[in-house]
């Protein structure tokens, strides 16, 4: 495929939305109250909707009979290229919110640049997604503030979640071969340029939430190259269950 880099680049964006949407989907019906349950499901719906748009475009690039579901469901674990952050489990509500916040802050900055992509399909998807992700970011950062500056217990839980998840933030800025090629073409976003704004945004919110900024300089990476945490296999088990058990059927 001549567009291989473009195809890989799209998967990189799509897999983040797919995997985070899947994680949030696990919580539907189990939230701390009805309003938050509905909000988390909303975010899941937005992310899966975005993932569908990206996968449909990827399927079109791949050509032949390829459909969105073939790409979304039928790759091996090593072929999924989402960042490690989004596959982290729903350990408790603080982790769910922490994961969302650390991703949303990046996602919003990323989409604000991606809307200027020279690829008109990608640009259109990004434009639509910005509205949704602005809401996600407001929701998650409001909850970081509530939990951080709530009770002693909630502060501790929120701080633990941020400390544990911080190690996955640096990978958001790693650039694969496909990323680099797409930056040169004016299609992709040069994420290196977003790093400062990203950590600045986190710092502001965490301060307001009366939380400490983690000082650790050790970061995990691998997802973007298909090397995932141990959680990923179980997530894919669920995601792929029907497509693997009953191959080649229409649903």
């Amino acid at each position, binding site marked *: 495929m001549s567009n291989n880099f473009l195809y890989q680049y799209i998967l990189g964006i799509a897999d983040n939305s797919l995997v985070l949407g*899947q994680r949030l*989907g*696990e919580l*539907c*019906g*189990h*939230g*701390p*109250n*009805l*309003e*938050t*349950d*509905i909000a988390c*499901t*909303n975010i*899941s*719906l937005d992310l*899966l*909707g975005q*993932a*569908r748009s990206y*996968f449909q475009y990827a399927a079109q690039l791949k050509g032949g009979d390829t459909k*969105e*579901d073939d790409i*979304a*469901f039928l790759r091996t674990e090593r072929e999924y290229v989402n960042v490690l952050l989004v596959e982290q489990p729903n350990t*408790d*509500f603080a982790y769910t919110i922490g994961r969302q916040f650390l991703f949303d802050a990046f996602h919003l900055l990323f989409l604000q640049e991606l809307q200027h992509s020279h690829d008109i399909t990608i640009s259109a998807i990004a434009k639509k997604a910005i509205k949704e992700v602005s809401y996600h970011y407001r929701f998650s950062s409001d909850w970081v*503030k*509530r*939990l951080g*500056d*709530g*009770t002693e*217990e*909630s502060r501790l*839980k929120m701080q633990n979640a941020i400390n544990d998840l911080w190690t996955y933030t640096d990978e958001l800025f790693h650039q694969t071969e496909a990323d680099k090629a797409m930056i040169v073409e004016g299609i992709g976003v040069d994420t290196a340029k977003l790093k400062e704004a990203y950590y600045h945004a986190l710092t502001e919110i965490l301060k307001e939430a009366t939380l400490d900024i983690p000082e650790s300089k050790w970061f995990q990476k691998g997802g973007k190259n298909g090397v995932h945490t141990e959680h990923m296999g179980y997530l894919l088990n*669920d*995601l792929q*269950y*029907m*497509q693997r058990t*009953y191959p080649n*059927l*229409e*649903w």
Partner: protein
Amino acid sequence: MSEAQIKDLEAQFEARIARDEKIEPKDWMPEKYRKTHIRQISQHAHSEIVGMLPEGNWITRAPSLRRKVALLAKVQDEAGHGLYLYSACETLGISREELYEQLHTGKAKYSSIFNYPTVTWADIGAIGWLVDGAAIINQVPLCNTSYGPYARAMVRVCKEESFHQRQGFEIMMKLAQGSPDQKEMAQDALNRWWWPSLMMFGPTDAESVHTEQSMKWKLKRKTNDELRQQFIDQTVPQAELIGLTVPDPDLKWNEETGHYDFGKIDWDEFWQVVKGHGPCNRERMNARVGAWERGQWVRDAAMAHAEKKQSRKTKKVG
């Protein structure tokens, strides 16, 4: 208030209902009317919330992205229904916390159908088609019920339910027209969900304790048996259309009555599930109570944060 005055108010109240006027939260109402409505509306709200669980069970495993998104949206609609029904119930002078307490301690009931497990993807189709189909038949008359907030909530609920029902039927149709495995999955789901769906209309009229009073207050417009018959008459041709067989050897069209005759419902099973001994009663309750308990610190934090914010604001102003 003297007994005569109360009698007079009651007479005026019954006359308003007879004239099809809506009763609003601030209007005077007999205590029994209030209690009956709290019971029914909360039972309905609880059913929506517990009903999220069997379907939620398939969100992570839905077979395609399109189906996953539709299922998520559907389960979210149910959360929304729960929300307006709890709000309608709160207008009768009971708090959401009290209502949850009643659910969690088993004092309040929810629809027994949700105590059955969803074991295959086809169960998601069967729930939409049969369970939502039965719910609509039960609920459409409630759009004209006498209590205003309930009637208004039901208008919206019914619109969404009818969308869910079509979506469920479409899942079943796709399976029934699919591979032998898919068709078998669809038939198996119909076999398991058919009888519990018939039980959703409640005991036979002879056994139903609430029917008479509820008919008077327009909480009910038709009896359990009439509604059940309507469901059967409507659903059997749909099953035939997609080539599935309703699991009732006694099912037969009756030219004389213009309705289907049907076999005997296993009421022992119904009462067993109502009394807490269905396949998933314990799981459903554990899931609800668990979510509530795990969420306690979150709700406490939100309250504490709101109070801090308020007091900072007050200080600034002061």
